[in-house]
């Protein structure tokens, strides 16, 4: 993906090329459309939307829906806006990403540079855990979180996301370190460096790209999670996605579409920002997520 195309052998005529560009641009419209709708409708008064003007640019620009979505909209039972839930998500995502990345890095290091009998099977077990339908763990997880007193807490969600995120972070680092020359580790061993010194001094300084990939992937996944959030933290401890859904689905009063769109953008903002800033790494993560490195 990152590799630029070397000269393609295929040649196309002018007519074909024009057609290609037209098709490509039509698809751009398709992909852009929902984003466009979210943005323009989040800054217009409700009456403009219900009057059939969903596609048009706002004639009366307002940031009222944003303010409302952020701080006063009715989410669930209280008119708190999405703000507290945004912070819930932040305080869940940061530790969960940090812990799962650190564990993944160490696991990847061990599974490639300190190999032992059966390590491939262990990795296979970890890898499969990335792909299970999480419905299969919901019931016992709910029970355990209850026993641990973590039901409905951010700490509980952090635990859940670390557990089910470590497989992917291990996959990333394992594939990355597999290409890291083992001779370097051997040289460092002869030089007298120990397990942690080799990791810290030799591997980690070269791990920048994969750390970025892993952090972005974990961040996006955990931020966007809905199933665990809805299952284990539906009240005041709910993450942003759950709160957004509550806002949009709430059946009381008038449906404030403009507020819903503003809320949706708020929920999408962090991951979109990451995508804009580091899209290249995001794509790398996606590709590695399809296992082939």
């Amino acid at each position: 993906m990152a590799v630029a195309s070397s000269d393609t052998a295929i040649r196309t005529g002018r007519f074909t090329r024009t057609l290609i560009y037209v098709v490509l641009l039509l698809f751009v419209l398709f992909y852009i459309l929902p984003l466009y709708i979210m943005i323009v409708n989040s800054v217009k008064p409700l009456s403009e939307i219900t009057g059939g003007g969903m596609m048009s640019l706002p004639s009366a620009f307002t940031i009222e829906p944003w303010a409302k979505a952020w701080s006063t909209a009715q989410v669930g039972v209280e008119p708190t806006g999405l703000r507290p839930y945004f912070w819930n998500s932040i305080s869940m995502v940061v530790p969960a990403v940090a812990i799962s990345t650190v564990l993944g890095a160490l696991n990847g290091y061990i599974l490639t540079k300190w190999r032992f009998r059966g390590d491939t099977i262990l990795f296979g077990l970890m890898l499969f855990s990335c792909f299970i339908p999480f419905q299969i763990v919901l019931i016992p997880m709910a029970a355990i979180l209850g026993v641990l007193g973590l039901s409905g807490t951010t700490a509980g969600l952090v635990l859940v996301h670390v557990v089910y995120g470590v497989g992917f972070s291990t996959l990333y680092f394992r594939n990355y370190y597999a290409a890291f020359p083992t001779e370097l580790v051997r040289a460092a061993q002869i030089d007298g460096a120990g397990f942690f010194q080799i990791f810290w001094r030799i591997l980690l300084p070269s791990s920048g790209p994969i750390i970025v990939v892993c952090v972005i992937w974990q961040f996006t996944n955990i931020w966007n999670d809905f199933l665990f959030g809805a299952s284990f933290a539906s009240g005041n401890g709910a993450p942003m996605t759950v709160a957004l859904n509550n806002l949009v689905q709430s059946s009381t009063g008038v449906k404030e579409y403009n507020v819903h769109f503003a809320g949706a953008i708020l929920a999408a903002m962090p991951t979109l920002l990451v995508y804009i800033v580091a899209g290249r790494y995001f794509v790398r993560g996606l590709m590695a997520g399809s296992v082939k490195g």
Partner: protein
Amino acid sequence: MSTAAEADFKTRLQNWIPKLVLSPSLAMVLIFVYGFILFTVYVSFTDSRILPFVDKDGQRTFDLIGLANYEKLFKLSHWEIALTNMAVFAGLYIVVCTLIGLTLAILLDQKIRGEGFLRPLYLYPMALSFIVTGTAWKWFLDPGIGLENIVQAWGWENFEFDWIKNRDFAIYTVVLAAVWQTSGFVMAMFLAGLRGIDNEILKAAQMDGASNWNLYRRIIIPQLRPAFLSAFVILAHLAIKTFDLVIAMTGGGPGRATELPATFMYSYTFSRNQMGIGASSAVIMLITIAAIMIPYLYAELKEKK
């Protein structure tokens, strides 16, 4: 590294540290993934209705009932609908995503000016939460304010588009939104595959007089087999896991028109207090995914060795 018996302290320590460091992750995975899977399988053999499993007096709240849940599950019309919807959804989703992904990849591979600008626009939906995607499409397709309303306001008074509210068509709107979200990703996978093809082979084929059409049909697309396989596996497993999108777009409705196994499991477990049945449906989901993923992962891991 060395036989433990005669290794010096440093060597022995170095042999143990890796296993020690690996063990927390391993324990986590063994307990929270595989232990929990076994637990859910166990629950699926019981008549549990709600948590906790033990009441205040320390009495367990369930009995073992063997395969009764599975028998009941497959007699439920609700589950049958979920399975039928799954088949329609997964089939269309996989085929359409693959077609769009492959088309876009092939078109983008024609030395397109501005490829670096186009690619991110195709891919950004992958960065969004399904709840966000669902919200956007839900209101855009809503006949009251969305597409139908818009087109009518443009002057086509008789235009009708109420699929999302229509029992017979609602599932296709979910397919549309899901395709919107992931087809760019499939494009990226195929593009990577295309870029990996040796250009000299293409040049040789051109010397042999192959037209562009034949070049793709006979030389290039057959070489994309690994990309097709990866795309299929990833899409199939995403399809089976689809949950948030349905919740956000239709809530499984109208009626049960967009109910999928994932939403079925959730509602039986957490809202209908039929945990045993919920568990058995989760087991069925796991088996389906395992049937697709395990051979794939096995082949991938073996290849890497």
